[in-house]
Each structure stands twice: as C-alpha cells, then as structure tokens.
C-alpha cells in the first residue's frame, strides 16, 4: 500500500496549520462560480483548464474579483485537470500555472487545489479500475502539494470515487482537505448516497471539512444541510448553485438574486455551518453578500454520534438488534471452501443475496482458506459485493493484508473483525481502521488466550478501547466480542461470556457482538442450545449476533425477544414475520417408477417446463432413490430441454420461459451432480466471456444458463474481460469451446483482437462469437470459428461439434 509523503515546504505547512486553527471556529468564505465568469468574458471552452495557460490574465482577474468580494479561499481552475479528461495535456504545467494564477493577487487567502471527478465510472459498474483512478488523483496531488494550502475535492456524485480521491490526497500530502458531493432533490447523490453516509465515511477518514456543493439552490438544499448539521462532526461546507435555473429558449438561466441567496446562507450560518461559498451561476456579488458573516464565531451545534457502519447506500446503527450474516465464512462450510478454491465467486455472491433476503443487516466476509490468495480474493469479492448488495460488510480475516485489501476497496464504512488485546495486533490493525475510516471489533483475548472470568475479559476490552482512542479511533467506532465458548467443553465459562457482555455494555458503553453458534459444538440439538443462548445474550446486552439469518429458529428468537422486551410495533412485527419452523416441502406429485420412461407425463418434465426450480430439485431427489442419474438425464431432462428448445424456435414459448426452464433443469442437474460426484455427467467445458470494453453481459449470461442446463461446465469470465484473462482461462481449463460476446460494433474490434491474440498464442480450441451486431459475415471477417444467432443455436452447434469429434 502507498506510503505517505511528507514533502511539504515549511511556509505552506504553517499556513495550512493556521487555516485548521480557524476552521470550525470562525466563519470562512469560499469563492463562487467559475464557469459563469468565463462565459461573461466570452472565453468559455470545453476545456476551461487550458485557459490557465492561454488566458492567465483572465483567470487571475476572476480570482481577484473573488478576493475583493471577501473570500478566504481561492479555488484553482483545475477541476478537470486529470489524465482521464485531458489525456494529451501536460497536466503538471496546467496545474502549476493554475496555482500561479490563483496566487497572483492573493493577500491572506488560502489557495485550494480543486479536484473534481474523473468523468469515468469506476469498475465494476464502469471500467476504470480503482487503482488507476487513484493514480490519476495522485498525479494531481503530487503536482500541487508543495504549492497550495489545501485541497478541495468537489462535485463528486459517487462515494467510491470520492473515497479514492481522498485516499490519494491523504496518502500523498499532509495538507488540509475538504470534500463535497452533489445531491439531488431526493436528498441523495446520483449513486444513492445520503449526506449522513458521506459525512460518516469522510469524517472517519480524516477529511477536514465536509459538505455539499453545486446540486441545487440554497433553498432546495435545506434538508440536505439539516442532515449534515445533525450528523457531521467536522466543520460543514456549503456551496450552492444560484437557485434552480429556468430554461429559456432551451438555455438554462439563473434568476436568484444575491440577497435571496445570502438570506438562506445566513440560515445555514445560524445552524452551525462553518464554511460558506457558491457554485454554478454565483459571482463575486454573491460572495460579497455572504461575506457579511465572515469571521463570526461558528454557531455551536449538537451532533449525533453513534456506532454506525454503512455501504454507499445503506447504514446500520445499533439502536436495535442487528444480524450479521455468517454464511460467507468457510469454517465448517465445505461448499464455500470449494467455491473459494475454485474461484467460483458467483456462489459467494449468491450467499450474500440469500442472507440479504433473509433480513441480515450486515454480512461477514471471511475468505481464509489455506493455500489460496486471500488478499486478492478479498479485494475481488468486496468489489463485487459493492456492486450487488446494499448491506454493509464485516471484513473478517486473521491476515492483516487481507483486512487492508478489504477496507481499501470497500465502498463505505466497514466493520473490521478483528483486533485483540495483543499490542502488535492492535498496532497493525488500528492504523488501517484509521486510514479507511472503519469501525473495529475487539475480541477479549490476548497472548495468554481467552481469560476465564468476566472481569479479566472486561479488562482486555477496556485496554482495547483505550488503545483505539490513542490511535485516534473514538469509542463509538469500537465494538467488543466477549467470545462464545463451547458448552460441551467449557460449560462453566458460558455464563462468564454473558457476564462480560453485560459489563462491557454497561461500563464501557460500546456495542457488542458474539458468534453465537460456537456455543453448541459437539452437542445434540444444536439449534435449541443456540437459540436459547442467543436469547440469554440479548438479555445481557448483545447488539450484533453473528448468525445464519436463514435459520428460522435464530431469527424467530430475536423476533420473540423484541416482542417481549419492546413495544407494540415489535409485537406486530413478531406476528407478521415469525417463520413456522415445521419444514414445509413443496407439494410433490407421486412419481410411480414407470413414469420415468414416459417423459412427457413425468412430473419432472412438467416442473422443468414450467420453470419450477424448487419442485424440480425435490422431484429429482425422489427419482434418484430408484433411478440412475444417466437415466434421469437422458430420459427426462435432455428430452424436456429439446422440447422446450423446439417450442422456442416455433415461437410457442419465448425467452423468459426458455430461461426459466433452463434454470430449473440446471438445478436438477445440480442435485444429480451433488449426489453422484463420480458420475461423469459433464458434457464438456465452455469458457464464456464478454469482451474487453463491453459491460453488457445479459446475453452471455443467458448462454451460460442454457449451457449449464444441458450439463456443460461453464467457466464464466464475466464482462469487460481482457484478452490475457481469456488465454489464461483456456490454458487452465482446456475447454472444448470458447464463446465470446459483444454488443456493439465498437466492441467487436475488441472481440477480433481477442481472437487474434488467442490464435497467435496457439489456441486451437474453436472460438464461437455472438451478440447483437454479429452475423456470419462479420464473424468470418474477424476469423471466428463459428457464429450462432442465439443461445439455443449455440448449444446445438456445440453438441454436434462434440459428437463429430467422438
């Protein structure tokens, strides 16, 4: 991980310290809009940053007007001076010139290096890797750090990109850094982040001022500012637009007067906002109007601070019991272990979705399997989870590097599991928590193991919390686990865990966690022990049980506890959500043995055709008691799929029905495979990828389902796949076929490149292509070995090809 740079010249460091001393105590004024000033001068271009070089006098003059209006901060004209937006420019010169222009007329003002978003969406939703974005921001920071007094990261719509930019500043400079995002009238950023979530992450990571810019007019920003006022424990900065523009003749025109603007800004001052400024449409007149508040003491405000973890879109506080889903942890889970070893990340992601749907509040992520690269795996899984779940994550590893990878690439405030009372462990983990703004779970054990008594465990908890505070981590960012022991081996110690829980809750005032199911190892009827222990722990103050949220006994115990301890709403909640624990299996029609041969009247045929996944699984299990796997596959599953395929061709059924049937069939195959590991029921191996530059993967995923339904093994390389990854997969898995997908003409070029690359590297495996713009001619042109118009035709073609080979 990058090392912090300390190269700061003495003079600018002094100015920076002076700024921080004033910040949050006295009202400070930022400058206003820049674009509208350029337009006024008739010099607005698509790349205003180049004006630093071509029109330095104009730029310096705009800064001077703001200085004369009374601002304390001058923002450099460098918003888009990054390698993504200006790939051909000499960025260092542009930035240096911009700073020079900003300094030309400055007297006492602080010069702030302006950094805006890169204009590209970060992977995995876009294609810009987090590390590349980091380098782009770092380049700007390094060019400016010795010449400016601080940084302002502004107008970010995406929390992940803002986190990346803030890391680039904090890891390469010691100067103060302010961060602002844009919010819309829903009270969220374009990517769904609330002011509270932004404030929590930015504050934990050490931003010096936090707030909102651009977005809307001051009046429309009121509720957003209110949220910052309530939850942001750092000085708040607000830079609104000049109201909402009205559109005249197709052009946006700002109408709000400087007085009306200042009136609302004055309300923000009265609420405790510390830094006031303007954005689009505002000019020196507006800054002059708000500068009447300059140097006034910042109004004191009450800030709500409580233990909170969050993703970019969802936060969890511990005002009630929160379930941490334990399913993504390989201990005692054979299938998950295999998935991690085989790189089957879809399995892990599906576990996440299952737990979210079972009402988990956050998810534990532990990928520690011997002889696997848990650092790389943690990075990859966390980034995929950023994309597919809104639940916050608990990054769980005994490897500090894996913890750091998880924290660095997580989009939000994660919970680190864990530290213990060992000094070396705390010295390694707390700085990571501090750098990435995480909350930390402390285990009440140390070099001597787990102490027997509650008092000793409490003493360790106290030591951990105090050590955290020394590292700058406030108590609300700490949680404690008093460690569940197995009742079969250490029965007297179970109550010590509970006593310690109570002591930690009452005396330290921190939230608590327990891995509940450990208590019952080696016991019969484990669920009874687990759910009883859970209830006892809840009564002693447990706030975050780590359990399987899909286990009804456990979730019912929590519902019941809340109903008995809580209010009328909790009682209703129990009545509405309690799950009957009698296992209900889907209604399965009788399956007399003789029906196996008569495909069309087989219940399995019917279930697959209708896309009934659960029924298909149950019927297959039943059939396996009396029939051979090959019999079921050849007599029912394959004929049913063929029938479904024929109906699709004839347009008797359509795409959703074809996919549903294929998915049901895939599930049935899964049962057969699970029960008869030795059965060689795999027809062949297919490597599938959506090519580099293309993120439309729905077509490829349809192909995947159809292939799997026919019993093929599919190696799915995902979307935006580099050619090198395809080659690596071909070498590793030796597939029978490679299938490449592309949606647009532009990405067909990337497809062609991939094909050439594979062939140049002596890949003899046939390469098939598909996608919206492909046809046979184009496929021939790019030297593909085959083209099919849809998934079904593809599977048929491969079937024939493999048959001919035999």
């Amino acid at each position, binding site marked *: 991980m990058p090392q912090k740079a300390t190269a700061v010249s003495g003079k600018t460091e002094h100015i920076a310290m002076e700024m921080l001393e004033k910040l949050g105590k006295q009202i400070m004024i930022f400058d206003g809009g820049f674009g509208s000033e350029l337009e006024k001068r008739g010099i607005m271009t698509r790349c205003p940053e180049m004006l630093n070089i071509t029109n330095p006098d104009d730029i310096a003059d705009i800064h001077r007007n703001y200085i004369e209006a009374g601002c304390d901060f001058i923002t450099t004209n460098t918003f888009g001076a990054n390698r993504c937006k200006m790939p051909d420019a000499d960025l260092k010169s542009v930035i240096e010139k911009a700073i020079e222009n900003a300094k030309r007329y400055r007297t006492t003002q602080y010069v702030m290096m302006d950094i805006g978003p890169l204009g590209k969406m970060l992977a995995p939703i876009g294609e810009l890797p987090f590390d590349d974005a980091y380098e782009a921001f770092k380049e700007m920071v390094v060019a400016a750090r010795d010449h400016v007094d601080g940084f302002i990261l502004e107008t970010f719509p995406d929390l992940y990109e803002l986190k990346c930019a803030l890391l680039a500043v904090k890891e390469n400079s010691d100067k103060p850094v302010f961060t602002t995002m844009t919010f819309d009238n829903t009270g969220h950023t374009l990517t769904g982040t609330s002011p509270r979530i932004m404030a929590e992450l930015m504050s934990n990571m050490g931003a010096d001022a936090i707030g909102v810019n651009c977005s809307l007019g001051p009046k429309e920003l009121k509720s957003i500012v209110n949220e910052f006022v309530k939850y942001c424990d750092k000085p708040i900065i607000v830079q609104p637009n000049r109201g909402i523009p009205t559109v005249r003749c197709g052009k946006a025109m700002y109408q709000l007067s400087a007085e009306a603007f200042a009136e609302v800004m004055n309300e923000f001052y009265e609420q405790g906002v510390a830094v006031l400024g303007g954005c689009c449409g505002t000019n020196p007149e507006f800054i002059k109007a708000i500068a009447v508040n300059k140097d006034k003491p910042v109004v004191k405000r009450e800030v709500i601070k409580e233990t909170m973890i969050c993703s970019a879109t969802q936060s969890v506080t511990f005002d009630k019991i929160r379930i941490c889903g334990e399913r993504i942890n390989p201990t005692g889970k054979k299938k998950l272990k295999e998935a991690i070893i085989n790189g089957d990340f879809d399995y892990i992601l*599906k576990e996440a979705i299952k737990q979210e749907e079972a009402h988990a509040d956050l998810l534990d992520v532990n990928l520690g399997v011997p002889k696997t690269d848990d650092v790389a795996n943690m990075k990859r899984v966390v980034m995929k989870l950023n994309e597919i779940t809104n639940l916050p994550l608990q990054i769980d590893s005994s490897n500090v590097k894996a913890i750091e990878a998880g924290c660095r690439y997580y989009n939000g405030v994660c919970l680190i599991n864990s530290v213990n009372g060992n000094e070396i462990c705390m010295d390694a983990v707390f700085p990571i928590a501090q750098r990435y703004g995480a909350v930390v779970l402390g285990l009440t054990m140390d070099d001597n193991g787990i102490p027997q008594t509650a008092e000793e465990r409490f003493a360790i908890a106290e030591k951990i919390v105090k050590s955290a505070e020394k590292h700058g981590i406030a108590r609300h960012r700490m949680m404690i686990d008093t460690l569940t022991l197995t009742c079969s081996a250490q029965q007297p110690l179970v109550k010590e865990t509970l006593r310690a829980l109570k002591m930690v809750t009452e005396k330290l005032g921190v939230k608590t966690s327990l891995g509940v199911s450990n208590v019952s190892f080696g016991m019969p009827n484990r669920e009874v022990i687990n759910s009883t222990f859970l209830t006892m722990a809840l009564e002693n103050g447990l706030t975050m049980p780590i359990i399987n949220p899909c286990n009804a006994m456990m979730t019912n115990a929590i519902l019941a506890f809340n109903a008995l301890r809580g209010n009328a709403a909790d009682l209703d909640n129990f009545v509405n959500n309690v799950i009957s624990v009698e296992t209900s299996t889907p209604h399965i029609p009788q399956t007399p043995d003789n029906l196996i041969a008569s495909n069309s009247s087989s219940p399995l045929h019917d279930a697959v055709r209708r896309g009934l996944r659960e029924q298909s699984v149950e019927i297959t299990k039943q059939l396996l008691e009396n029939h051979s796997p090959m019999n079921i596959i050849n007599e029912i599953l394959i004929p049913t799929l063929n029938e479904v395929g024929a109906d699709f061709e004839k347009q008797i059924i359509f795409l959703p029905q074809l996919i549903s049937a294929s998915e049901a069939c895939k599930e049935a195959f899964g049962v057969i495979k699970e029960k008869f590991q030795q059965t060689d029921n795999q027809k062949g191996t297919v490597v599938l990828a959506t090519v580099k530059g293309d993120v439309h993967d729905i077509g490829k995923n349809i192909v995947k389902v159809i292939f799997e339904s026919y019993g093929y093994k599919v190696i799915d390389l995902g979307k935006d796949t580099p050619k090198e990854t395809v080659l690596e997969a071909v070498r590793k898995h030796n597939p029978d076929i490679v299938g490449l997908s592309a949606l647009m003409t532009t990405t067909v070029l990337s497809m062609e490149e991939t094909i050439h690359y594979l062939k140049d590297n002596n890949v003899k495996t046939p390469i098939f292509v598909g996608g919206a713009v492909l046809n046979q001619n184009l496929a021939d042109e790019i030297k593909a070995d085959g083209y099919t118009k849809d998934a079904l035709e593809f599977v048929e073609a491969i079937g024939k090809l493999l048959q001919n080979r035999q």
Partner: protein
Amino acid sequence: MCPARKMKKEILKYLGHKDANSVDEHTNSLIDKALLEVEQQSKFKYIYEKFDEPLPFMKDISGYQSYLEDSPFLLCATTLGVQIDRYIQRLQLKDMAYATVFDASASVFLETKADEFERNLEFGNLGFRFCPGYSGTSFIDNQKIARILNAEKIGITFLESGLMVPLKSMVGIIKIGENVKKSCGGCAAKSDCGFRKNGTYCYGNA
C-alpha cells in the same frame, strides 16, 4: 392505449413476441413486477439544450442533414441511473429469466419516461429522438453531444469503447418546429431500419 399497456406491448416486443396476446401468465406477472421495481430503482434524469444551427460535427454528414432539414433542434441526454445497472447484475445471479424481463422493462421505461418528459417541453412539435450511429452518422458523436450538454452532471459516462454507463442511458437529437412530425419518413435511419423492414416501428405506434 394506457401507458402501462403500451409499455407492456413494447417489452414483449423486446422479448421476441410479435403478438402481445401470445404472452403466458407467468411472463405477464414478471413484467408487472419488473415495471414496479424499475420505477422504484430508477433515478430518471433528462437534460437538453436548444440549437438553431447544425453543430460542427454535423456539417457535411448527410444523415444529419436529411433528418434535420434545416429545423432547429434539441440535443438531449437521459438516464435511469446507475442503481438499475447494479440491480440487473444482482438479478442475473438470482433469476436470469426475471433479469431478462427486467432489462427489457428498464429499456422501455426509459423510452416512455423520455417521451413523457418531451411532451411537456414547449417547442411546438418534436421529431423522433435520433441517436447517432445510423445512416452514416458516427456512434462517437454520442460522446460529443454528451460533452456539449455536460451529461456527466446527470451521471452519464462513457467507456473507451463508446458504450454508455449507466447502461440505461440515451443521448440524441430531436428536431423541433411547427411542421415537424414523428414519422418514419423523417427518420435518418429509415434506409436501413430493421423494424421498418419487418413492418413494425422502433417504438410506439408511430
């Protein structure tokens, strides 16, 4: 036709149905669910700007000339936001059939919302949205339009390949004026339009 029914008809077209009556009960219920969820998950944004003269990138390109016929025009950019992309990724792990229906529903929803937004604009009559990439116009012009409108402000970004993120985004040109009509005859893509060849329309009952 009511908007929901019209949307459903379009979604079925995307899913390969030629006839709306051929839909089975299950797919029908999936579409109903998808339309509700698309509405919940999306963050519709639309920006535009009016121009009277062809822009430099349009000059000497017959596709633009034949579409615009010297009319003033709007450049527009619209999107459903990035949450839809995340949701589609999630659905694909859970239920591919529904993911496919949801994907088609999101596309139709964006078209419908954009139509609805445009109906409330006060520019007289509007032509179809024409998206560069057809009739000799370059796909890369989409990025030029997005830059002119600063579409980044509503979250529209481009991949190296020119594809848009969020996936459910559109950038286009709409001619305006009293005599303008929404008809295939005025479309720049009329010469090589697959829908026309099959006797249908790209969307709606034109």
